[in-house]
C-alpha cells in the first residue's frame, strides 16, 4: 500500500535521509519512531509530496508520488507536524475548504465525520475558538474526509487528554482493521506507540535502524528463580543447551523467546526447585535503546503511563 524504497535526501550540506526503506500494508498501524531531528518529518514530507527526494521512490497504492503525484496524493490523508487551519473559518468551512482540494470529491457527510472524531455540534464554531485537542480531532476529520487508503499522522496525540488518546487509539485500530487502511503514525511517545502499532520502524540520524513487530520476541528474556545451591548447575545446563544466561539479583536471566519456556522448564525441573519462571518482554523503549545504543538520547522521548 505505502512503499518507501531507498529514499535519500540532502538539505544544504546535511544528509537528512540515507537509503530509507519500509512498507506499510493495508490494515496495519505502523509506528515511525525516532528522536527529534532523526528524519521522521522529512520522510513524511516526501511521502506527502511536500519535498522531493534526491534518490529512491515512494509509491502509494502503486502510484509514484513524484511521477503520478495527483493519483498518489488522492490516496493519502495526512496531518503533518501540527493541524493548521484558517482560524476565522468555522470547523465546517475548513472541512469544505479541504474537500475542495480533492478533485472529483462531491459529497461529504460532515455530521458523520464530526461524530466520528467527537466534534458533534462543534463544527459551526470558528476554529480560532477551538482547543488544541479539538484542532487535532478536526485535523483527523480532514485527513479522513476523502476516505484515503493511506493515513499519515505526525504526532496525532499532541494536545489530547488521556481519554482522547485512548479513544483515538481505539478508533485508529478499528479503522485500520475494518477499512483496510494503512496507517503511518510518527511519534516520540514510545509507550503510546507500543499500544497502538502493529509494527514500527526506528529512524535515527536519517537511517532506518530497525523495522520490527511491536509484539516481536527479539530480545525477550525469561527469568528463573531456583534454590540457591542449584544455581551453578542450572547455569551450566543452560550453557550446554545453548541458552545465553546470566545472574541478576538472585534471578537467572535467559535471553530466549517465550516459546522456549516449556523446554527451559523441562531442563531445569530435574536439577533444581523451580520457584519462579517469568517472561520479560522488552518495552518499546528498551527495544529502541537496544537498536540505537544511545541511552544519552533517551530524553528525546516522552512516556505516557
Amino acid at each position, binding site marked *: 500500500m505505502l512503499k518507501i524504497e531507498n529514499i535519500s535526501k540532502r538539505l544544504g550540506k546535511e544528509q537528512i535521509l540515507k537509503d530509507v526503506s519500509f512498507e506499510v500494508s493495508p490494515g496495519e498501524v505502523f509506528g515511525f519512531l525516532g528522536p527529534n531531528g532523526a528524519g521522521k518529518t522529512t520522510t513524511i*514530507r516526501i511521502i*506527502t*509530496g*511536500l*519535498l522531493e527526494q534526491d534518490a529512491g521512490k515512494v509509491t502509494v497504492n502503486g502510484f509514484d508520488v513524484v511521477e503520478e*503525484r*495527483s*493519483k498518489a*496524493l*488522492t490516496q*493519502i490523508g*495526512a496531518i*503533518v*507536524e*501540527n493541524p*493548521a*487551519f*484558517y*482560524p*476565522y*473559518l468555522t470547523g465546517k*468551512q475548513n472541512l*469544505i*475548504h*479541504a474537500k*475542495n*482540494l*480533492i*478533485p472529483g470529491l462531491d459529497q461529504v457527510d460532515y455530521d458523520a465525520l464530526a461524530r466520528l472524531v467527537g466534534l458533534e455540534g462543534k463544527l459551526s464554531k470558528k476554529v480560532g475558538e477551538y482547543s488544541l485537542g479539538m484542532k487535532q480531532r478536526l485535523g483527523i476529520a480532514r485527513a479522513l474526509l476523502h476516505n484515503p487508503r493511506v493515513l499519515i499522522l505526525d504526532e496525532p496525540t499532541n494536545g489530547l487528554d488521556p481519554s482522547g488518546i485512548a479513544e483515538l487509539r481505539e478508533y485508529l485500530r478499528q479503522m485500520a482493521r475494518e477499512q483496510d487502511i494503512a496507517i503511518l503514525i510518527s511519534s516520540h511517545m514510545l509507550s503510546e506507540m507500543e499500544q497502538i502499532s502493529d509494527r514500527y520502524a526506528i529512524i535515527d540520524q536519517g537511517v532506518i535502524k530497525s523495522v520490527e513487530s511491536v509484539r516481536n520476541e527479539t530480545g525477550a528474556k525469561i527469568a528463573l528463580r531456583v534454590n540457591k545451591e542449584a544455581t551453578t548447575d542450572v547455569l551450566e545446563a543452560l550453557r550446554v543447551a545453548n541458552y545465553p544466561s546470566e545472574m541478576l539479583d538472585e534471578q537467572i536471566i535467559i535471553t530466549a523467546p517465550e516459546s522456549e519456556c516449556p523446554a527451559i522448564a523441562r531442563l531445569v525441573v530435574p536439577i533444581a526447585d523451580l520457584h519462579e519462571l517469568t517472561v520479560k518482554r522488552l518495552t518499546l523503549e528498551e527495544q529502541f535503546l537496544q537498536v540505537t545504543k544511545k541511552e544519552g538520547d533517551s530524553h528525546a522521548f516522552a512516556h505516557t503511563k
Partner: protein
Amino acid sequence: MLSLIQNEWMKWWVTKKAKIVLALYVVIAVGLVVIAKTNDISFDRSGYYSNTLTILTGLLGIITIVFTAEVIGNEIRYDTMKHLLMSPYSRMTIYFSKLIFSILIMLFQFVFIVVVVYAGSFAFSEAGDPLLFRDTIVELVNPIFTIFMTLFFALLFRSVGMIIGFTVLAQFFTAIVGGILLTLKPEIAKWIVFMHLDWSMYFKGTAGYGMGEVMGTSLTFSVLFVLAHIIVLFGGSILIFQKKSYT
C-alpha cells in the same frame, strides 16, 4: 481550479474587511456627492464620475496590495500552505488559482466602484462631457500590474506586513523618483515602469496628458513596457513558487 477559486472566495468573503471595504467605497462616493452639494461645487455628471473614479481606483490600488498580499501571506501566517501543497493539485494550478482570484476580486471591486460612482453621478443634472468607457478601462492597468508585483513579493517574503511594505515602497518610491526625473531627466524616467501605468496620459483632456510626449514614449511603448514587466514578474513568481519550500 474552480474549486480552488471557490476556496479563495470563501476565505475572503467571510472576513469583515471585505464588507468594510465595499462600504468604504459607498461612503466615499456618497460623501463626495454630499460635499459637492453642500459646498456648491459645480460638478457635472462626468466631472463627478471621473474625479470620484480616480479617487476610488487609487484606493482600490492600495486595497488590492493588501488583499493580494494576504492571498499568499495568510497561508504562511496560518501554516496552511502545506495543506494546499499536499493536495493533488500542482503548484502551478495553486498559483494560478491565487492569481486569478486576486484579479477577480479586484475586478469585482472595480465593477462595484463603477456602479456606485455611476449611480452617484445622477445626483448631478448636467451631463457634461460624455462618460468614456476607454477612460474607465485604463484605470484597471495599475491594479492589474499591482497584483502581479504583490504576488511576486508575496513569494519572496513570509510576512504579510513585509509583502505590503515592500510593494507600497516600490510603487510609491519609484513613482516619486520617476516624477522628479520627469522634470530633470525625462529620457531616464521613461525606463521606470510606474511611469507607464496611467495610459490616460495619451488621451486629450486628462490630467496627465502630454506626459508621454515629455518622456518621448507612445501608448504602444507603454503597453509593451508594462506587459514585459508583467511577464517577468509572472515568470519569476512561477519559478519561485515551484521551488520554494513552505515546510
